[in-house]
């Protein structure tokens, strides 16, 4: 199977080449604008011709995304983006297939398609805009809304426990799992580009602010004053350190992550957990994903894990080629007349 990524690109694109030119109709201040800008900016680096890129989406604010990209696009129905994208990819494995989706679209109504796309390792990229709310339907809680959240459909607070998308993806066997933020363009560009070059399914969760129905959901992670203490950057082979003065770290005490003070005279950077993106064992990914569930812990952003795993599309094509090699290309004669026929004269 050829590796599309290594192909030499004939045309040099700019971000503008990936804009469809139609009016973008998200609410002013929506985090979606940033995702669109970063994707358009990085698209020239995807190593793929524009006509070979397909954006597929479901339903929701984020799912308007394909209309704004000057590539092939398919705006599907609620929850089914991953399944539609799977069909596109298997119909023509040479295409680079992207899915734009939201927390409601992918974690709720599309949950089944999501876990199976991850399990099968279909070679496509899923960018999930997580604003922890249903925006397009005007403000009901979503499967990622925090417990107790007051919304239009939960005036007394939710009693639901939220999904942790990183855990869902990891548990389903996704071979690339990452998170970024709408208000950190540079970081998002890096993560999107790396997802584009991953062979296999890539899941990128983007924390995205909905200024209308869930404004400020991520402010502690994005605002200047609080950011450093609440975000921890995941970088391969680097210790888990955070804080404005890089004076806090996370160490692993058995299976429990513990926050340590690097200036307490007891701990040093050598005690910190060193991130390994290529870890075979998903256990540590689950521990990292848990940080957002433990009060006081920083939110990890970056690539949680990536690993090589045979992809469905490549292996399917290989199986077809193997059978053709062994049995020869199918013909009408072979199909219809091979066995069990008789002649009437």
């Amino acid at each position, binding site marked *: 199977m050829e590796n599309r990524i290594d192909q030499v690109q004939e045309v040099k694109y700019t971000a503008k080449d990936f804009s*469809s030119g*139609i009016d973008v109709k998200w609410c002013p201040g929506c985090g979606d604008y940033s995702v669109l800008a970063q994707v358009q900016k990085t698209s020239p680096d995807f190593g793929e*011709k*524009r*006509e*070979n*890129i*397909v954006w597929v*989406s479901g*339903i929701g604010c984020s799912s308007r995304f*394909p*209309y704004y*990209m*000057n*590539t*092939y*696009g*398919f*705006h*599907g*129905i609620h929850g*089914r983006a991953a*399944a*539609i*994208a*799977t*069909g*596109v*990819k*298997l*119909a*023509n494995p*040479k*295409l680079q297939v992207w899915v734009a989706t939201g927390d409601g679209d992918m974690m709720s109504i599309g949950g*089944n*398609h999501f*876990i*199976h796309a991850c399990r099968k390792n279909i070679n496509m990229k899923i960018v999930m805009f997580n604003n922890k709310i249903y925006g397009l339907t005007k403000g009901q809680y979503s499967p990622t809304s925090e417990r107790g959240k007051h919304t239009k459909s939960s005036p007394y607070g939710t009693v639901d426990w939220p999904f942790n998308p990183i855990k869902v993806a990891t548990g389903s066997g996704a071979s690339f799992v990452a998170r970024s933020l709408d208000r950190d363009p540079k970081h998002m560009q890096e993560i999107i580009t790396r997802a584009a070059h991953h062979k296999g399914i890539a899941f990128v969760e983007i924390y995205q602010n909905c200024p209308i129905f869930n404004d400020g959901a991520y402010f502690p992670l994005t605002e200047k004053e609080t950011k450093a203490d609440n975000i921890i950057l995941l970088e391969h082979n680097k210790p888990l350190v955070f804080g404005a003065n890089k004076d806090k770290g996370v160490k692993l005490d058995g299976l429990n992550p513990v926050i340590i003070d690097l200036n307490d005279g007891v701990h040093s950077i050598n005690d910190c957990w060193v991130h390994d993106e290529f870890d075979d064992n998903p256990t540590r990914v689950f521990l990292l994903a848990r940080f957002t569930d433990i009060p006081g812990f920083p939110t990890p952003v970056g690539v949680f894990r990536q690993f090589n795993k045979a992809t469905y599309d490549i292996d*399917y094509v290989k*199986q*077809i080629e193997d*059978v*053709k090699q062994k*049995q*020869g*290309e*199918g*013909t*009408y004669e*072979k*199909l*219809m*007349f091979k*066995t*069990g*026929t*008789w*002649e*009437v*004269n």
Partner: protein
Amino acid sequence: MAKQVQVVDDVTIRFAGDSGDGMQLAGTQFTDTTAIVGNDLSTVPDFPAEIRAPAGSLAGVSGFSLHFSSSDIQTLGDALDVLVAMNPAALRVNMRDLKRNSTIIVNTNAFDTKNLKLANYSTNPLEDGTLSGYNVIPVELTKVTMATLEDLSLSLKEKEKCKNFFALGLLYWMYNRPLEITEKWLATKFAKKPELLEANKRVLNAGYNYGETTEIFTTRYDVKPAKLPKGIYRNVSGNEAVALGMVVASLKSGLKLFLGSYPITPASEILQELSKYKDYGVVTFQAEDEIAGIASAIGAAFAGNLALTTTSGPGLSLKAEAIGLGVMTELPLVIVDVQRGGPSTGLPTKTEQSDLLQAMYGRHGEAPVVVLAAQSPADCFFMAIEASKIALKFMVPVILLTDGYLAFGSEPLRIPTFEEIPEITVKFRTEPEGFYPYMRDENFVRPWAIPGTPGLEHRIGGLEKKDVYGGISYEPENHQVMTENREKKVEQVVTIIPDVVVDGAEEGELLIISWGSTYGVIKESLKVVRKAGKDVSHVHLQYLNPFPKNLSAILSKFKKVLVPEMNLGQLSMLLRNKYMKELIQLNKMQGQPFKIAEIEKKIYEVLGA
């Protein structure tokens, strides 16, 4: 004593026993041999929903029926001439289908206290007079099978399992069929297990010789070859025929075939069959659910494949929203619905025609699709090709209705040459100059521009699109125009479908209109009533949306119109609505096909005879 040979026109036999008794296998072997000796035939398996119900129980009875004839036949026939009953339960379950004076071959070894009790017999029906009036042939099938294999080192269980071939051999003798075809099959099947090959061969021959030498058999029967049109034939079931037809459509169109499907009775065999054809490049995606099955097919259609999804009633319900997406995006898509008894889980292994209105209208919004229906197992082959052709030509979802009876039933297919099959021409749009995604040709068909084509990058989706240009549009007038365009496109299909042909007089007292799998039984009923001098005409519909354009004129020429259906009157409703014509209904909802006698009786009733 010399045995008599009696020539008969047609015979219906049934092999019946436990699910594990190998009845389907014995039946299939008899079918293959019968096909090759040149009879016309029709087969139907009847198996329980349970995979392996307890041995000897009524729930576990599995049957295989075969009707073969020296003339052209379309259906099974109402009643059995011969029943092979491997145990008391098989006898009890099948008694009601027997003709008077028919032959029952019973395995007496299985008629022990335990099995009699399992079949709810308080006394032994072989001894208490239950079977008086039938020609009962008691055979110690298990015992003679074991005796035949005494010197072989196989286990007792392996030996006992050969008894279906004893019954098969016996029937080969009774109907004067050669053993070679089954022997050849055995040689391939057990090429690596010489002892099993020897055992089955020996038992098959023992059964044959048993008929030849035992005095209880006085007569053997001869069914002469049928005069079928010249050509090369093969036997096909409906599900197999759909799969073959789709592969042929792929070859004809030059498009890769993509199937997105989720296993469901009675449609799963199409998925299984197509998964074999990797040498044709066929992609079978066994999806996580019914919705993913169709959603992936829509994705594949967008990317330029011949896209197919296969299902049965409950699955068609789940796919409804996505079919609407197919209508809106105007992509070619074939949806095969193998109907079963409903609603809900209903009767999964039984047949019904009750999805017609769902196929027509089972979606939100105005969402017209083309609806076709196959009329026989072999016709499934041609209608699958036809469905593909229409979907590709008109960029539209096409629902092909078959049903459980067609899916599992089989009949000979005269294999057409590749040239005899209609051409399917597909032209992808490649020219960027003047391209808009929703521009239309004279048939209201939009261009198919697939990803990978430079300069044609565009976006489609479920939101209403601006006429011609394809951008999102909420304009009131535009929605009206687009809704009407989608409807007109489906109506345009009428221009390429054949006029329907009246079987019988062009005008008269009574016209029967039917669709789907009732074709065979209605044709057989017509033979009967016409023999009795009744003038009845018949129209069978393979195109249900749109209807053939000459249907209206035909309807107007008959005083009475009878519509037999395996539902509560769904075609009747469509016909009444469209043609404002008074109709007489005949509706059967028993999970079983009509019997000839039922149609016949209704015809006499309608004619007042």
